[in-house]
Structure formats: structure tokens, C-alpha cells
């Protein structure tokens, strides 16, 4: 083979190699395109999946689905627990309000009781009863009537919003006030809102009694403007007043009488010894 022929073969080999390389590059590009298109097809299949059409789930999908179910169950349990806790909270809140109301009521009762027994001065006791009726019960017009055992009449010893001279003397057992004194039973009008003042027929009449012995009554004719009805604690206050006010009035009256007698006796003794 001549040199010229060798050159021709070499050139053709070079050309063939170039063509082969281009072919290889083209094939590589085709393979890449193929891969890209397959991925795209999968993407499109995934996005255009028709519900109900059967698709063979992969193991990973099955595992994920199971995990989703577990998480859904956990979520339901947590939601159920939250609902339970919320219900408990509401219950606690309601109980808190109840306890606070009860606490306030007990404080009122304690204060009323404490004040009633804080003095042995008859006038002060009447003043304290008046304050309790105004400030704790919320009455505007009322009277404290005591039974005169000599005349068997009920007479007003303290009034608020009503002049004392206006108050009638009531015979024991006569009318609503007299009957309350006789029976020892509380009296409340059926409808506070529609009540109109009548000194013989009060809105409320509470006997002041020591055990079963009635020493007087408390009569209410008008409540403060904002007070439209009695609350549960008011009835408890009335019950407390019926007992504690009676003993406070009775003991202070006895004490005042004995003080007065003692003073008189002391005066005589001083007169005799000087």
C-alpha cells in the first residue's frame, strides 16, 4: 500500500470516527429526551389520574397511606380530648362562678352576723339592722317594729324612708303584720314589681324571733330602684336577720335596761352614803 492510499484510509477513518462520535452524542441526547419525556408522562399521569380508576399502589404509597390513617386517628383522638377538656373547663368555669357567688353570699351573711353582735347598745343595734337592710338587702323604705308585751302592740322603733309617726300601731294577730308576729312565718308579696305601698300591708314582713318567741317584725315597703326582685341570698339574709337581729335587739335592750337600773341604784347608793 502506497503512502497516498494510507492517507486516504486514515482520512476515511477520521471521518467515520467523527460520524460515530456525532451519532453517539445524538443517541445520548435522544436517551436524555426519552428519560425527560417518560418523567413528564408520569407527571401528567399523576396529575390527570381519574378517581376510581385502578392504579397499582407502590409499597411506599401503601406505607404513606397507612401513616396518614394513623395520623388521622391521632388527630381525632386529640380533637376528642380537646372537646373533653373544653367541656371540663366550662364546667369548672360554671362551678367557679357558683362558688364565687356562694362566697359573696357567705361574706354578706358573715358581715351581717358580725355587725349585729358587735355592740350591746340598743340604738347601735337598730342602726346596724338598718344598714344591713339598706346595704345588703337593698331596701329603701322599711321599718323595724317591736312588740310591746304590755299593750300587745307592734310599734316602729326605727324607720327608713318612712316617718316613724306615720307608722301604724299594729295589734298582735291583726292584719298581715300582726299575723306574721303571731305565726312567726315570713311574708312576701307575690309580685314585687306591681306592689304599691300600703303601711298596713308591706311588701315583706319578717318576724324577729328568738326560738319561737317573736319580739318584733321587720317590714319592707320599697326596694332600691335597681332591685327588681329578691335573690336567693336575700332570703338567707332575712332568715339570719330573723334570728340574729332578734337576739341582738333583745340582749341590747336587756343590757340598756340593766345599765339604766344600775345607774339608778348607784345614784341611790351615792345619795345614801354621802
Amino acid at each position: 500500500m502506497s503512502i497516498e492510499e494510507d492517507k486516504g484510509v486514515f482520512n476515511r477513518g477520521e471521518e467515520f470516527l467523527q460520524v460515530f462520535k456525532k451519532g453517539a452524542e445524538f443517541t445520548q441526547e435522544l436517551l436524555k429526551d426519552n428519560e425527560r419525556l417518560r418523567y413528564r408522562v408520569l407527571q401528567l399521569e399523576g396529575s390527570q389520574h381519574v378517581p376510581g380508576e385502578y392504579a397499582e399502589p407502590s409499597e411506599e404509597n401503601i406505607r404513606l397511606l397507612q401513616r396518614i390513617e394513623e395520623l388521622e386517628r391521632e388527630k381525632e383522638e386529640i380533637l376528642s380530648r380537646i372537646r373533653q377538656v373544653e367541656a371540663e373547663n366550662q364546667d369548672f368555669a360554671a362551678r367557679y362562678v357558683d362558688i364565687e357567688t356562694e362566697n359573696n353570699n357567705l361574706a354578706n351573711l358573715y358581715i351581717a352576723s358580725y355587725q349585729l353582735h358587735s355592740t350591746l347598745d340598743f340604738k347601735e343595734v337598730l342602726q346596724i339592722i338598718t344598714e344591713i337592710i339598706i346595704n345588703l338587702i337593698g331596701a329603701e323604705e322599711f321599718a323595724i317594729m317591736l312588740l310591746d308585751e304590755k299593750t300587745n302592740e307592734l310599734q316602729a322603733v326605727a324607720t327608713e324612708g318612712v316617718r316613724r309617726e306615720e307608722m301604724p300601731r299594729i295589734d298582735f294577730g291583726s292584719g298581715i303584720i300582726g299575723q306574721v308576729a303571731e305565726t312567726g312565718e315570713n311574708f312576701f308579696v307575690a309580685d314585687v314589681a306591681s306592689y304599691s305601698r300600703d303601711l298596713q300591708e308591706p311588701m315583706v314582713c319578717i318576724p324577729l324571733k328568738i326560738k319561737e318567741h317573736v319580739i318584733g317584725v321587720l317590714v319592707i315597703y320599697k326596694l332600691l330602684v335597681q332591685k327588681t326582685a329578691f335573690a336567693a341570698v336575700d332570703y338567707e339574709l332575712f332568715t339570719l336577720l330573723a334570728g340574729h337581729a332578734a337576739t341582738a335587739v333583745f340582749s341590747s335592750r336587756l343590757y340598756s335596761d340593766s345599765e339604766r337600773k344600775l345607774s339608778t341604784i348607784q345614784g341611790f347608793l351615792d345619795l345614801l352614803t354621802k
Partner: protein
Amino acid sequence: MLEYQVLIVEDSPTMRQLISFALKRLRGIRITEANDGVDGLKKLSAEKFDLIFTDINMPIMDGLKLVSLIRNDADYKDTPIVVITTEGAQEDRERALALGASDYITKPIQPNRILDVARTLLNIA
């Protein structure tokens, strides 16, 4: 812990005890009581208070006069004052607010109302 000084000026011992009882539920409250306006002024000059409750109808010096005097005192011009009135005494209430009272409570006293007013005026959560 912060301690708030509260003065209650009220001639009725029942009312004083009632307000005091309610306020004691708040933490860090120290309560001083006065029987009337003059007694209240004495207590106000003896120490500094953060909140004042005063009744309107009192002997010797009433609550309106007291509110007016407190507001003219440089030490107390910004101290909250709560007046105690009856619902019907709207005129007194308006006069007290015009004189510089911060708020009012009406009789019969509700402990929750006392607490709400005190919490608001003392900025207690």
C-alpha cells in the same frame, strides 16, 4: 410584689367591712378605713394611697366635699376615687364625677363590682 394602699371612707361599719372583705381577695392590697371625710383627710395626709373609696352621704364632711379637696391636692390629683351612691342619687353621682371621681358603685354593694372597679383602676390583671 407590689402593694397597693386603699383607703375606704365610709361612716357605716357594715359597708366598710363589706368593701374591705371584697378587696382582700386581691393580692397585695393594704386597706385603711376612715369614718368620715375629716378622718379620711387625716389618713390621706399621713400616707400615700393608690385608690380611694368614699361614700357620699357622711356626717361631718360628705363625700362630694372630700372628692373636691382630694382633687385640689397636688399629691392626689391623679389618684383614682370611687364614690359609693344609691342608684336613685343620680345627681350626686354626676356631681362627684364632675368633681373628679373616677368611677362609682351603687348600693346594695356587689363584691364583684368592687373587685372589677379596683382591678381596672389599679391596673391589676
